[in-house]
Every structure is written in structure tokens, then in C-alpha cells.
């Protein structure tokens, strides 16, 4: 693993570093095996054709199917999708937290130029918390119930070689203050904190080493709207100050709309659409994203009748032969049921839908290339394996 701390000097000095947009990946020449082409310039994380299988008795279920995307330094990347669409599995795959029966079955995760997929446990331990931290969905279950917050912070710091008691106490108090909790709560046990405070202390813990990437798996879903809102504002504020990138997974489209820079919509283990958040919200291209936009009522504007999306997501053990959304799609065409669409580039977003096949060229750059593996029987599967820009 290329040394972490060396190129992190700028990250703690606040947003000044942001504008410079230093590419950390480029400075780690000893990267893992570059699968195809060079890492995308400047991206802190690049996920390429990542697949995760769950090994079931009756055969493998592909929960994440050749997902590709990248995250730039300081970017807030939102991932939305329904339960079972593979969004949490994807995160676990990126953070290398998968446990059997889940298994990475293909692709690579380039984090700061190094392939996370090849790392040993020891090498991973050096990266975790320090350069990349994960905030789990349920802080109640992620925090150890029988030790104080202070002890849990201490564990994480000791594991990374911080031994000075004074330094540990100072930093623990500092991060807790950063998330708006009085440091007296360092001596509290998780059950003594409210749900919002627990979730905040998880985020504080993730901030101990000011990582470059924080992965969050639905951190607000157990909170009330008011607490949810204030936590989001806080995450955004911390991000502005310290310049880390965020991958934020949620099922709540309306929550993400105001906070993320780019948005990835997942459906049945695949990327359905990926693009700038405002753009996806204002003109969703994939019928599924469009359906999601129409699926939640608003507190303002006219009170219109909504329909949602009839039906339910496919069984991934037996995915539909063609487009996975075809059985629920209002715009389904004959070809959708037999051929798998690739990821096409249309007006700045990448979308997996035949309707946009003839867009401004097929996707190849950045997020694309998801359809270039054989074996899925799709006639167009190879069509979008264009060159990466």
C-alpha cells in the first residue's frame, strides 16, 4: 500500500486545498494492477465494473452487476435506489467489508490510485479510518454498547499508532465538538445518547483522522426530519471545511436532492442513471428515475394524484432477460424484453435505456463501460465499450 499520510498534508487545511484539486491518485505510482487504462485523472475513487455475488445454494446471485463510477476529491456523491437494489452491497464491496456468502466477483476499486481489491487485511487496516471511513446505517448497532464513546475513539486511534494519551483526549474532544456534541459525552455510553447524537458520534469517529473519503450508508434513516435535516447540514458543513469526499447511500430521493453534487440511481444491481444531481432531478432520463421523482408527494405546490411505480423489483436470482426495469416500465418497447441496454451518454448523464441509445454518443468516459463484458446475451452489450476519454 502506498504510504497514506504523505499526500494528505493539504486535506486538513480546509477548503483552500479544494480549489487546487490535487489528484491524490496521480501521486501514487505504485498502484495496484491497473485493470484497463490508467485511473481517471483526479478521481480519488474509481470503481470499475465492480460485481458482487452472493453465493446461494442454487447458484450465485449477482447483487451488484458491473457498476462503474468515480468520485472526485471533495465531491458529494449520492447513490439512491430501493431496498435490494444492491446499494449497500456496493458500499461494502468498495470498503472491502463483504462477508460470506457475499463475494467480489469482478472489477476493481481504485482508491487513491491503488486497487483496494488486492489488499491484504493488514494493508486494509492501515487505510481504514485513516484515509477512508465508513458510517453505518444504524449507529445503535455500530457503536459498542458496553464501552464509552471515549474508549471507542481511543481504540480507533491506537490502532493507527496514536499512543499519546493527551493527543487522544484532545482529538476525541475536538471531533465531538466538530459535530456539535459537548465533549462531556465522551464518557457517555451509547444508550445514554439520543439517536441523533449517536449518529453524530459515529460521524465524529469517522473524522478522527480527517479521511479523504467518508462512505455513509443511510446515516439519517433512523432520524426524524428535523434531526435529519440538521445532520445533513452538518455533514455538508464539515465537508466544506475539511474537503473530504462523501459517498452517501440513501433510499430517500428528496433528502439527497439538496446535498449531493452527483447522483447515481441504481436498479436491480445496475446503474440506471448517473449524472449531476440537479440535472437528474430536473430531467430524469431513465423511466425508473422519472418514476421515482413522481413517487413522493411534496408539501408545496398542487396536490396532484401520484401513481408510484407499479410492481416490484425483479428477483436477482432470475433477472429478466432484457432490461431489468422492463416489467415495470411505462415506456417499454419490444426490444427491451429481449436485449440488455448498455449505459448510454445523453446530455451529460449516463443512462441505461434504449430510449437514449442514439443520444450524443454512447457512454465510454468516466462512468461508462458497464456493458463491455460478454456472456449476458445482450446484442448491444459490446456497443458501448468505447474508449475512455
Amino acid at each position, binding site marked *: 500500500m502506498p504510504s497514506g499520510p504523505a499526500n494528505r498534508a493539504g486535506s486538513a487545511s480546509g477548503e483552500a486545498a479544494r480549489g487546487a484539486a490535487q489528484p491524490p491518485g496521480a501521486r501514487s505510482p505504485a498502484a495496484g494492477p491497473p485493470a484497463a487504462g490508467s485511473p481517471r485523472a483526479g478521481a480519488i475513487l474509481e470503481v470499475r465494473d465492480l460485481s458482487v455475488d452472493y453465493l446461494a445454494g442454487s447458484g450465485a446471485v449477482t447483487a451488484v452487476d458491473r457498476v462503474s463510477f468515480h468520485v472526485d476529491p471533495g465531491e458529494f456523491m449520492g447513490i439512491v435506489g*430501493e*431496498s435490494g437494489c444492491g446499494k449497500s452491497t456496493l458500499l461494502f464491496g468498495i470498503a472491502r467489508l463483504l462477508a460470506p456468502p457475499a463475494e467480489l466477483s469482478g472489477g476493481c476499486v481504485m482508491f487513491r490510485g491503488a486497487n483496494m481489491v488486492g489488499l491484504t487485511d493488514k494493508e486494509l487496516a492501515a487505510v481504514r479510518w485513516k484515509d477512508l471511513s465508513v458510517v453505518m446505517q444504524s449507529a445503535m448497532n455500530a457503536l459498542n454498547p458496553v464501552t464509552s464513546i471515549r474508549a471507542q475513539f481511543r481504540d480507533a486511534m491506537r490502532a493507527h499508532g496514536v499512543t499519546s494519551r493527551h493527543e487522544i483526549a484532545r482529538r476525541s474532544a475536538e471531533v465531538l465538538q466538530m459535530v*456539535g456534541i459537548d465533549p462531556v459525552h465522551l464518557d457517555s455510553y451509547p444508550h445514554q445518547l*439520543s*439517536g*441523533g*447524537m449517536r449518529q453524530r458520534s459515529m460521524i465524529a469517529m469517522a473524522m478522527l483522522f480527517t479521511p479523504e473519503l467518508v462512505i455513509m450508508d443511510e446515516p439519517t434513516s433512523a432520524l*426524524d*426530519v*428535523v*434531526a*435529519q*435535516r*440538521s445532520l445533513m*447540514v452538518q455533514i*455538508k458543513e464539515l465537508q466544506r471545511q475539511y474537503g473530504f469526499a462523501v459517498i452517501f447511500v440513501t*433510499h*430517500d*430521493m*428528496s*433528502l439527497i*436532492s*439538496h446535498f449531493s453534487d452527483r447522483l447515481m440511481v441504481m436498479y436491480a444491481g445496475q446503474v440506471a442513471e448517473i449524472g449531476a444531481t440537479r440535472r437528474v*432531478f430536473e430531467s430524469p432520463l431513465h423511466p425508473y428515475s422519472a*418514476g*421515482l*421523482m413522481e*413517487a*413522493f*408527494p*411534496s*408539501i*408545496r*405546490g398542487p*396536490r396532484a*394524484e*401520484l*401513481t*408510484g*411505480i*407499479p410492481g*416490484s423489483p425483479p428477483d436477482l436470482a432470475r433477472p429478466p432477460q432484457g432490461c431489468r426495469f422492463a416489467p415495470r416500465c411505462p415506456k417499454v418497447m419490444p426490444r427491451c424484453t429481449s436485449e440488455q441496454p448498455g449505459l448510454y451518454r445523453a446530455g451529460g448523464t449516463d443512462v441505461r435505456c434504449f430510449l437514449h441509445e442514439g443520444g450524443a454518443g454512447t457512454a465510454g468516459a468516466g462512468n461508462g463501460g458497464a456493458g463491455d463484458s460478454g456472456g449476458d446475451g445482450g446484442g448491444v452489450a459490446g456497443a458501448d465499450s468505447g474508449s475512455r476519454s
Partner: protein
Amino acid sequence: MTGLSARRGRQADARSAAGAAGPAAPGTGALLRTEALTKHFKVGTALSRRTLHAADDVSMSIGERQIVALAGESGSGKSTIARLLTRIYKPTSGEIYFQGTPLSSIRSRADRLRYSGLVPMVFQDPFSSINPVFRISHGVLRALALHRPELSRRQRYAEAERVFGVVGLTPAAEVLQRYPHELSGGQRQRVGFAQALAMRPKLIVADEPVSMLDVSIRIGLLNLMARLRDQEGVSILYITHDIASARYVADRLIVMYAGHIAESGPVEEVLAGPRHPYTQLLLSAVPDPRAPLAVGAATDRGEPPKVIDPAPGCRFRWRCPLAIDRCHQVTPELRELLPAHHAACHVARAGAATKAFG
């Protein structure tokens, strides 16, 4: 009249207590009405016995064919209200009137059964509220056998098929034969509504029925609730923390905070002109992708209080930017500021809304 006493009863004598009050009490068109409903829980050990005020002085009413949304943060007492209305909890004080009959007058098992058939509950978690070892038909047929004993076996099955059709589980005959694990979350929640509907209810108490479902499926259930109101004439108490869905489906909105009702009124009116500062805070926190981002609004970091042995005064006062001296001393009562629009706030006025948040 389809009240408690109108149901076919085997024990006429036992019925008399409930039936004595007759139809709705004069002057109230409400199907169900609560008066100063209060529920306290004892917490702590014998040495430090304290009282948690889960619901205090809750007076509300639900009309016929009406969806009333009860909204609030977790810990605000909304689920306590649901359990009081369905007689899972006994109130500490206060009274619930169903079609004018006080529930405290219900004595016999037959009357209790009749009431739970008229006011059934739909639970939050569709994955744990259906017994996984029986076919789907088990729950609904059992409910029918218990609550509508006049039906024959064949009629019960026909009725089960009918209600499954009403909630959109088709083909009903086939769905009834399945096991719970074969159904999706949305379908299971429809089973919950079908079971409630089989008992020919007047009021369905639905405690966060859609919060565990995916967004793309939620709307279908909200539409189902509206259809049950319009076509089956059922009233629904829709308990939720999602104001947007409350607006979508409900006729009236009740906002609770820390065991008290903060504000109540016609849903559009409350949302267009919230009077209580808490309602304003809640509305400003609701994410709305169709609106431009306004960071800075509602960066309130307060938390709802734990209502243990509370002192008098408004429970929102610690978070309220408008709090005056009176708020610290006197608990505000619900006042009618506009027709049918109530708020429990010393500062709120009938005229232009006093803005605290948003």
C-alpha cells in the same frame, strides 16, 4: 347506526352498557373523540420512581369517512395515542368516546371484541406482523371467524377474497394460498389492510404503515388508503412522521410534540399557514427537491425533550425563538385560532402567522 351496539351480539345483556349511550353524543358529529386523554408510564427503580408523560391532555376527534394524519417526531406520543385508541393501553386519565359511547363503559369480552373489530390496527413492520408459518389466508380467516361468526366457512372464504381484491391483491384466491415470505413488503402491508377491512371497520388505526416501504411502493398504499375512505367509507388515523405523505392523503392534520397536541386543522390550511412554531420548524425541515435549497433555515439542533416529570409550561419553549415568560410558567392550551384550526401556543395569533422558522 353501525355503532358498538348495532353489531350482532350474542350477549345482549353485556351489550347494554356500551349501547346505553346510544348514537353519537349530541353536538358531536365525530366518529371517535378523545377528551383530555393522558397516558403516563412509571420509569426508574423503586428508589427513583419517576413518571414519563407519553401523552398529556390529548383532545382530538376523527370524523366519518375522514383520514386524519397524526404527525410528530419519535417520542412525541403518536404511537401511544394509537395504542390507547385500540385499547392496547389503558388511559391514565381522560376518556375516548366511540360514536358517543365512552370506552371505559365497555366491560364484556363480546363488547371488547366488537370494538377491536370496528377499530383495528395496521402495524408499521409488515415483515414481523404476519405469522410466517401460516398461509396468508390464516390471519384473515381467523379474524373473520372471531369477529363475524355469522358467516359460514364458505362465506368467510368469499369475504377474504373480496377484501383482498379491494386492497389490490389479485388474483385473490392465489395470493391467499401463499406464505408471507413469498410476498413483497408492499404486498404484505396490503395484507395488513385487508385483514383490517375484513372486520368491517369504522376506523383503521395505521401506525406508520408505509415508513418501511420503498418510495416507489409507498404511493400505492397511500392511494389505497384514500380508496378505502372513498369507497368503503372507512375513517383512518394515519400516524406518520412524513408530512408530505400526510398532505397527500389526509383531510386533517394533527401535529404532536412531546405528548401534547401542538396544532390541528385542515391539512392544507395548516401547511399553508402553520401557527405553532414547532409546526413551522417541522415544515422547514422537510426536504423538497422541487424547491431551491435554502441552507440556513432550520439549523435547529435541539432535540425533543424526554417528558419525565415535566414542569408546567410549553414543552417546546427551549427550542422556540419566540418564547415569552408566560411560556415558561403556563402550559398553553389548544385554542381555536381559525375555524377548525387549533394551536397550543401563547404567541400564535389568528391573523398573519408569527414566523419562527422557515
